[in-house]
Structures are given as structure tokens and as C-alpha cells.
């Protein structure tokens, strides 16, 4: 299955990845060949098969509603690229 340049650009935007202009043909080719590989799945009829999300078909365990975490802001923000007054900072978002 062949993807074209605009598909790759659209995917890269959805995934928020900046790709160099000159890399797009390479990605297009790589992604197309990967899709050819995965499309081998389409040959099998799986209409009656329940999808398997977990190998054990296990069910969710529940946690008691207790506060177990204390304020750890100083340590957790010490690794932030930009934080001030206790807030993480990003370029101004216009809504």
C-alpha cells in the first residue's frame, strides 16, 4: 500500500513530529513498505474472533480511594525545562 507525501505530512502533524523536507521521501517509502508488511493480516478472516487486549483476559483491579501521595513538587519540577511560581511554562496558548 503506497502512501504519498501528503499522507506522511498529515500523520507527522497528528503525531506532532517536525520532519525535514528532504526526509519525507524516505519516510514515505519506509512507511509504505511497513504497511505492505502489516497488510498481510487482511488475508485472514477474523470476523468471529474476539479481539485480545490482554494475554490473560484479566480484569481490572480496584484501588481503595485513599490519598497516598504527598506534595513532591520541588523534586518533580526540578527536571522541568521551564517552571516558575510552581507552574510549568509553555509558549502562550491562544484560545
Amino acid at each position: 500500500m503506497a502512501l504519498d507525501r501528503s499522507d506522511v505530512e498529515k500523520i507527522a502533524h497528528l503525531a506532532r513530529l517536525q520532519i525535514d523536507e528532504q526526509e519525507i521521501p524516505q519516510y514515505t517509502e519506509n512507511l509504505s513498505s511497513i504497511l505492505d508488511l502489516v497488510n498481510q493480516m487482511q488475508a485472514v478472516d477474523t470476523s468471529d474472533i474476539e479481539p485480545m487486549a490482554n494475554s490473560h483476559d484479566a480484569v481490572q483491579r480496584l484501588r481503595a480511594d485513599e490519598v497516598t501521595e504527598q506534595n513532591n513538587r520541588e523534586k518533580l519540577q526540578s527536571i522541568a525545562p521551564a517552571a516558575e511560581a510552581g507552574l510549568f511554562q509553555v509558549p502562550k496558548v491562544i484560545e
Partner: protein
Amino acid sequence: MFDKTLAELASGLENGDFSSVELTQTYLDRIKAEDSKYNSYITVTEEHALAQAKAADEARAAGNASAFTGLPIAQKDIFCTDGVKTSCASKMLDNFVAPYNATVVDKFNAAGAVMLGKTNMDEFAMGSSNESSFYGPSRNPWDTDRVPGGSSGGSAAAVAARLAPAATGTDTGGSIRQPAALCGITGLKPTYGRVSRFGMIAFASSLDQGGPMTRTAEDAAMMLNVMAGFDHRDSTSMQVEVPDYTADLNQPLKGLTIGLPKEYFPQDLSPAIAMQVQNAVKEFEAMGATVKEVSLPNTALAIPAYYIVAPAEASSNLSRFDGVRYGYRCESPVDLEDLYKRSRGEGFGPEVQRRIMVGTYALSEGFYDAYYKKAQQIRRLIKQDFVNALNECDVIMGPTTPHPAFKLGEKTSDPVAMYMEDIFTIALNLAGLPGMSIPCGQTEGLPVGLQIIGDYFAEQKLLNVAHQFQLATDWHKQTPDGI
């Protein structure tokens, strides 16, 4: 001292032949002297290791030593370690000092282990050759022009080069077993849910599993005794009792039924590999095992299904790396979109970006049923194959990889060719079953791995089978030249 197994080192410590500080220093010195050849470590935690070793010696002197006290190991750089850089071999996390410990790390600390450092790997565990590491590839100690395999290539190389007696790895599609095979060591991928994933940086959540990489099956059992167990912080962790994995190592194999799937011996399998695996099987027959052919008819679908499930989950798991709260942030972003796109575009390497894009595409509107859902249905077919086969035999055996270690750069330009290296290992992750790779021969001076697959939570059986083989053979004792 550095050529001893974990079990031997444990008795040396217990007998007072050497202290943990001496032992740790020996490894630290070796790493300093030798690792430039292998690039197996990203970070060596010398001070931290010596402090832990000293504490271990003090605990022993006070009579508080347990089986693992004072034993040095290396951690794959995918496990978060409080106060120590945890990079996942990515530029994205080159500056990331984890503020907490993975459960696996906590467990080793509680057991009194000494961490020598953090090992090299494929970036975010995406790769089969270690070449996607931001820190450069780790190299195969058997031939430094060749890859050690991946993604846990640094751990495999470190153990093979005797730069650590044992290391942790993680396995999403073969990332413990394939490098173990290529580097001639023992690797075990436990049942999904056996080892906690908390603090293990996620690649594909429904496939990832941590496990030991060691010289011997006995050492792997010692490691798994520390690593295994239920964790309330991981919803996918299973509440299944943890046995003493060393307890059954010496059970005789008489009456063991080995299944050989015909799909694991295809026409184009390297004849040398096929022969080594057949020889290993004969060894088991000599121990009283019987062999029968089984079938895993959906084997060919494993790679296609995997290359949907893994990238889809990865594309979502890696969205958190956005340059906002930690990790790499691009210089002077002009706006939010620029911050996201450049931080991620510059912070992730090409293989990671490729997989994020494949996963994003597979999940995008209109494709979910044809890709992700289809792949999850195929997972069930694959699981059923194994359940059927394991009804007829106790363990399944076959080659771990279709080829021995390949040359650096040989497959980097063709991602699909690289993916095909995982043909025998990937199905297990989709099914969630445990599997091991142990050295079973050599071809042209390179190790060959035998894969042993067992039923859910049958790690004890796998370790028993592998240990009996290692008592009868000495492939696991082979050492690369120059070590």
C-alpha cells in the same frame, strides 16, 4: 573473579572469599578499562555502586545477608532509577534524572543488590540491533563489527564481555531473547504480568515484560526470584504466587515432551542454525525427553500483527514526551505547535519516529478496525496456536533467531528486513507466554540461541530445562576472544 557466575559469586561472598566492595571495584575497573570496545553502558554509577556494596558488606557482617546481598548487576536504561539519569537511549531523555525508582529497581535494592550502571539499548527499546541508540551502538563481544542484537543489546554485551555478572532486560518482541542469542548468554522473558512494569518506560504496554539476562539458567532463576511478583501499582501485574525459581532446577527431564513447530524450521533458515538447534534437541533426547512435531499455523501473521499493536501503543505511550514537564525541549519555541513538533522531531531518532507514524496512521480515523482491532484478533489466533501446541507437549523449542549476529549497518536502511529478525520471538509477546534463549552452539565463531517456550507462569519449568542442558553442555561457558 569476573568470570564467575552469579551463583558462584554469591557463595564467594558468603564464604568471605571477597567482599562486595572488592567485587564491585573489580567490575568497575573492568568497565573503565574495557567498555570503550563494547559501549555497553550509558551510565556507570560508580559512587552509588560502592556505597551499596559497602552497605551490603555491613549487612553481611551484621548477619543480615540474604541470597542477593552484595551481588552486582546492571540495569537496562529503561528502568527508572531515582537520582540517576534514565535515558532510554534517547536524546529526548538525555537530561532526565528519574525522580523515582521502578518497582524492579526497588526490589533489587531491597534484596541488597549493587547497581553498576545503566546499559545501552535501542532508543525506547525500538530495534533489534542496538543501532538506534542515541549514544551509539553497543557492539557484540564475539565480533565488535557485529551487532549485539536489541533492544537489550547493552545488557547482553555487558554480560557476554563480563562487565556485569547479570543484567536486566526488557522484551517487547524479542528484546531479551534475541540479544541473548546473538551474544551467547541466557535470557528469560517471563509471562506477561509476572514482573512489574511500573517505572519501566513503556514501549508497547500490552507486550512489554522485564526479565533477567545472565550467564546461566541458575543465575536467571536467582534474578527472577528478585524481579517477579505482584505490584499494586501496575494494573496488568498478575496476582500469581511466586515460587522459588531455583528450587526445581535439578528435576530430571525424563518424560519431558518437546514440541518442535514445523513453522520454526522454514526452508530459508540458516542451515548452520538449524543444525545447532537439532543437536540441542538430541541432547535433550539423550536425557530422556521425547520429541514431537507441533504446529503454530499463524506464525507468519505474528510480525504483521506485532507491527500494528506495538507501534499503535507506542505512538500513544510516547505522546507524553512533549517538552513540557521533563526531557528535551527545543531551543526558543515560537509557539506551542513549534514546541511540540521540534522537541519531538529533534528529540526522537528516525526509528522511533517511524514507529510513531505507523502507529498514528493505524489508529487514525477509519483504520481502527482494519488495523488495531484486526491485529488484536490475530493475537487471539496466535495465542490459541500455542495453547493447542502446549496441550501436546511440555515445552516448545526452536531457534531464537533466523541468523547469527549481523554486521553493524547491514540492515539499517531496510526496516522491514530488520523486523524479520524477530520472526521467532515476536509471537510469544503477542500471546504473553514465557520464553528463554540459551546458547546451544556456534556458527563461524558466533553464538546460536535455542529458544524454549513454556506455558503461562511455567518459568520454573523453562529454567529447569535450561539448567539441565547447561549441566550437560558447555556452550554457556564459551567466552569471546580477548576476555
